[in-house]
């Protein structure tokens, strides 16, 4: 009796195993198809194109002849070591790294600070502050770029006037036009615009911390500073890590603010050139410079590699080691 029941159950299990739920495929298909066609295929095709060279002037060609020729890793060699390309590449990479470091070291702490203030229990007008600080993040970058170009204009800008009021007019510099300060200025504008995003994330994470833990800390005699650094901060550390990696991906893909404020000159003298603007100039060409799609694909693939590397470091070195607390 017993045996027959168990064999019956086994049979049922076997039957369940045998029958593959084919309808799942139907449900998976649209997403997989779209993802493959629009993400995976273009990605690999970009990497493929980066191994080719192209006859830019189209000399001695008609429409039927093959415009591209395979050259292996030559484009990558040129990009890293041939001075005409490598100067721009390393310059863009250096600027981009600087841009990222400024974001991480300024935007993240400020976001955390504001979130900490917002989550304190006896602050009035919380929602107003939150909305106001988040507002710039919802504005179009083109508008932000245009506004700041006007605000900082050497002819009709306002820093001169404001500095003049306190008698410090000589401190005014055309920050957007000077080689050193230009990138810092643009980074600060970007930080100002997007500081609301880390703030929101940290704020949500801080709100998630149960009151019991904080009450217990209070009873144990922990002051606000030690509560923050010893209890709240470790609890939201995964969110901080997430924010850093989001900033990393966003910054190495950044393009729009530079494009809006500096056009593709990325001036002065390419001191605000990022990987994105460098890619655009290479791929599409700029003014008199003809576009070079295969070299552009090389720049894009390299940028992809840089971002992938950062994300992998984050996943293996940071996320796997971090302790998650259940509450």
């Amino acid at each position, binding site marked *: 009796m017993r045996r027959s029941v168990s064999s019956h159950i086994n049979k049922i299990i076997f039957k369940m195993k045998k029958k593959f739920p084919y309808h799942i495929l139907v449900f998976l298909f649209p997403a997989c198809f779209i993802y493959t066609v629009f993400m995976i295929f273009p990605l690999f095709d970009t990497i493929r194109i980066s191994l080719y060279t192209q006859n*830019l*002037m*189209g*000399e*001695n*060609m*008609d*429409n039927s002849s093959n415009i591209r020729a395979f050259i292996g890793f030559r484009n990558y060699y040129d990009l890293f070591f041939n001075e*005409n390309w490598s100067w721009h590449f390393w310059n863009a990479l250096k600027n981009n790294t600087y841009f990222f470091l400024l974001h991480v070291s300024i935007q993240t702490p400020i976001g955390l600070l504001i979130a900490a203030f917002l989550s304190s229990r006896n602050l009035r007008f919380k929602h107003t502050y939150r909305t106001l600080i988040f507002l710039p993040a919802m504005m179009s970058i083109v508008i932000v770029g245009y506004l700041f*170009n006007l605000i*900082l*204009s*050497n*002819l009709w800008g306002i820093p001169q006037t404001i500095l003049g009021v306190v008698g410090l007019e000589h401190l*005014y*510099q*055309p*920050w*957007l*036009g*000077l*080689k050193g300060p230009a990138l810092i200025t643009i980074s600060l504008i970007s930080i100002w615009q997007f500081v609301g995003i880390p703030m929101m994330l940290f704020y949500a994470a801080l709100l998630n911390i149960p009151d019991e833990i904080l009450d217990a800390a209070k009873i144990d005699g922990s002051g606000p500073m030690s509560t923050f650094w010893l209890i709240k901060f470790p609890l939201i550390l995964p969110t901080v890590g997430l924010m850093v990696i989001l900033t990393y991906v966003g910054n190495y893909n950044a393009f729009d603010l530079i494009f809006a404020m*500096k*056009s593709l*000159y990325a*001036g*002065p*003298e*390419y001191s605000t050139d990022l990987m994105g603007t460098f890619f655009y100039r290479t791929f*599409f*060409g*700029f*003014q*008199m*410079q*003809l*576009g*070079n799609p295969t070299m552009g694909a090389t720049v894009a693939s390299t940028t992809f590699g840089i971002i992938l590397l950062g994300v992998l470091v984050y996943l293996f070195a940071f996320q796997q080691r971090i302790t998650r607390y259940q509450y």
Partner: protein
Amino acid sequence: MKKLLSITLLFSFLFSIGNALAGTVIIESWRNDDADAWNDKIIPAFNAKHPNIKVVFQTTIPNQYAASVSAKLEGGNAGDLITCIPFDQSLKLFNRGWLASLNGLNGLENYPQVAKDAWSTDDQSDIFCVPMASVSHGFMYNKDIFKELGLSIPKTESEFFSVLEKIKSDGNYTPLAIGTADTWAISTMGFQNIGPNYWQGEKGRKGIISGDEKFTDSHYIELLKSLAKWGDYMATGYQAQTYPDSQNLFTLGDAAIYPTGSWEIFTFSQNADFEFSAFPPYKPDGQSECFVDDHTDIGIGLNAASKNAEESKIFLEWLTSAEFAEIFANEVPGFFPLHTHSINVNDPVAKEFISWKDDCATTIRNSVHIVGRGEPNLESVLWEVVSGVVNGTITAEEAGAKAEASLANWYAPHQ
């Protein structure tokens, strides 16, 4: 923007009906500023002679024109007539077989060779666009300010700087309305403006192509040194001043002199409420000959796949006539027809620009023909070094060396 969008929509609508009608010639262009002139004057004038040919002027946003027109040509849905960017961008289209050869088109004899160079193959065996218009360089000045300060028009370098010095010491006006934030502006309106007087026009331009002259030669260094002095007379913080900033600075009447191109005449005469005129590029001290840049800027070619090739050719032939030249020169002041016909121009500032060509030899920009096609592109390198020189971040000698090195990198005559 809204206007632009509606114009684009209108044209794409017109384009769709246009395709359906046989014998409709569609012109692809980036000159949406001239759309009114084309639709209200030029095309009606053509139709007065050829009433059976319908012509549609269709525009694309300027900075996307090159990319969009080559995509359309590749896809086979471009218009019949293609407005041609000078030199390599159009040569590329011809090499791909997308533009038809116009050898033997009646009326091409009405153009000087330098005008045809912009749209011919390097060996001049094929011409693929009808030259349409050129732009010139010079300095515009605010007549009221010149009168107020008792200034006279400078002819030589030292006169130029003494005028600037007087305006500066008066203190009420910015002497020079230009900035370096848009590097093309200072390079095109500075370097290419006064440059021909330093490199002796065509002689220097051909010298760079043949490799007989180098950017490290003394006259190029002198030119760059002259530009380096401009910085002292530009507005405070000129390093961040963009091209539209400079335009506004001048049209608001706050600046005395504006290094410029003739293409500004049209918008300036609408915006400025003071009298302005222009003077030609200054010469190095002690030089008697003068040279002006008369840069071939717009041409018009025939789509090789056009279904209306016959009608299009009739239109192209009409473009070579004196009738078109006169309408175009007056409707779009600042763009000068490249024909050899003598024509009447009414705009006083445009007239002033044209008058220089009587006394001075003309040339085109030295960085575009043949030497402009390499990587790195000479034009872009010049923009970078010229703005560096004016900003004072590099010396004239370093700038010359950098431009020469970029050319030597890919161009055999300079190696």
